């Protein structure tokens, strides 16, 4: 948990920011190289491998028949789970998800759900009794900063890649036809854009180094229509209202470019 950044590195990074520069020569609003592949796991009904710089996440989506929640009998369920597995960083430990992992999964989940990415009403097989539950698993395998944006990007791509079997009731019988795989009904697209504050500046897509010296973080989930579907502040220091408003406005621009990474369909 305790990561000590030598003062000298901290100072040099901060000085760069002061001069409008970053250690990898990026602009303040520039993402690292993004790579996104889908269909990478044959056994998963949907999958994606996303890389933002050296950060790497595998996302798998698996449908399962279940009961709807009793207060929402006519919609299916999307469940997001995240594992900061010890492979990904020297300070990640085996065991049940810690608070960072839980936050990552919950923010990703809220972003997809509130944006209405999946048409959950189409996942009902029999109202109040049988619905599709989509399990989205985030497997973080290399952590070099900015997990939030990578998680949402990978989740969006994995959901767009997902195919579920045709399922129907025939009298009392539930028939699941794995020979007829139907694309998951996608209604909206949403992505997330994270800024950190260093020396009073907001810079997008923080690298690990930048995260370690940041004073605060803000992640904004946005739909393709530029509406806001999620927001989460993090970090030990405050943000001003102006900074937040500015971050929202920059997100509107950046999201447009980010969306181009998604499969075009």
């Amino acid at each position: 948990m305790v990561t000590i950044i030598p003062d000298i590195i901290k100072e040099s990074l901060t000085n760069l920011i002061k001069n409008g520069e970053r250690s990898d020569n990026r602009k303040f609003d520039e993402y690292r190289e993004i790579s996104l592949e889908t269909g990478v796991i044959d056994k998963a009904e949907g999958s994606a491998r996303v890389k933002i710089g050296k950060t790497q996440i595998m996302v798998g989506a698996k449908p399962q028949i279940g009961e709807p929640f009793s207060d929402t009998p006519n919609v299916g369920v999307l469940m997001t789970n995240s594992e900061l597995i010890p492979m990904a960083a020297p300070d990640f430990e085996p065991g049940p998800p810690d608070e960072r992992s839980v936050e990552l999964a919950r923010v990703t989940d809220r972003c997809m759900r509130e944006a209405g990415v999946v048409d959950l009403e189409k996942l009902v097989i029999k109202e109040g009794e049988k619905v599709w539950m989509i399990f989205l698993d985030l497997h973080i395998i290399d952590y070099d900063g900015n997990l939030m944006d990578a998680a949402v990007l990978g989740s969006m791509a994995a959901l767009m890649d997902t195919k579920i079997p045709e399922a129907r009731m025939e009298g009392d019988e539930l028939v699941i036809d794995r020979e007829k795989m139907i694309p998951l009904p996608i209604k909206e697209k949403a992505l997330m854009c994270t800024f950190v504050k260093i020396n009073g500046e907001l810079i997008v897509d923080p690298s690990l180094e930048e995260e370690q010296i940041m004073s605060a973080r803000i992640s904004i989930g946005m739909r393709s229509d530029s509406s806001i579907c999620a927001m989460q502040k993090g970090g030990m220091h405050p943000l001003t209202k102006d900074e937040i408003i500015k971050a929202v406005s920059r997100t509107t621009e950046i999201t447009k470019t980010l969306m181009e990474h998604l499969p075009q369909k």
Partner: protein
Amino acid sequence: MITIIINKNLNKGSQSNERDDGRAFDELRPFKIEAGVLERADGSAYLEIGGNKVMVAVYGPRELHVRRLMQPNRAVLRCRYNMAPFSVDDRKRPGPDRRSVEISKITSEALMPAVFLEKFPRSTIDVFIEILEAEGGTRCAGITAASVALADAGIPMRDLVVSCAAGKANGEVILDLSEAEDKDGEADVPVAIMPRTGEITLLQSDGHLTSEEFEKSLNLAIEGCKKLSEAQKEAIIKRYGD
């Protein structure tokens, strides 16, 4: 077997442009704050707002037994947000769940900027937030009460962090959503600020908003925080005099 539940409270369905409980769009629910309500804790506070009942205890600064968490140059601030099993309609199983783990994390981050942690290296300040009854907005209520409990414990602070949510329900941007408004509404934006500087230490948005609606919600929440801030100060003055 089929279960039928008869309940008069469901399906109110008032579609008038007034809020169900008669509040104005920018009106907080009735609230009260009290400091110094527990014997054993180093500091404590009790807060009611609407149907929420929140108790907070602070212990520390004290020795940190988990060496792995220790910080050489500052105190650790650990918050534990916990709901009593009887605080909600359907009994909550004791123990942390994913929701409470996330809220505990962001509550710590909301309070930390205000505390002079650097005065207590290698130690811990523990904040225990117990939701005795929940009716929408418990995380904000917990943060607001926690600040008072920290002050009651004599922890040196830059400011008293205060928290309140705004959001959107029935198409309107409104302050301090009740449980019903949160459940049926479109969005909830919990905010915490340090009132002296207006800086924001907690910010989430759960729901769907345009940029304009978001900005309006943010402003409204900040106004709500300022009103609650007065009550915090009064609670402390009432306990210690001024």
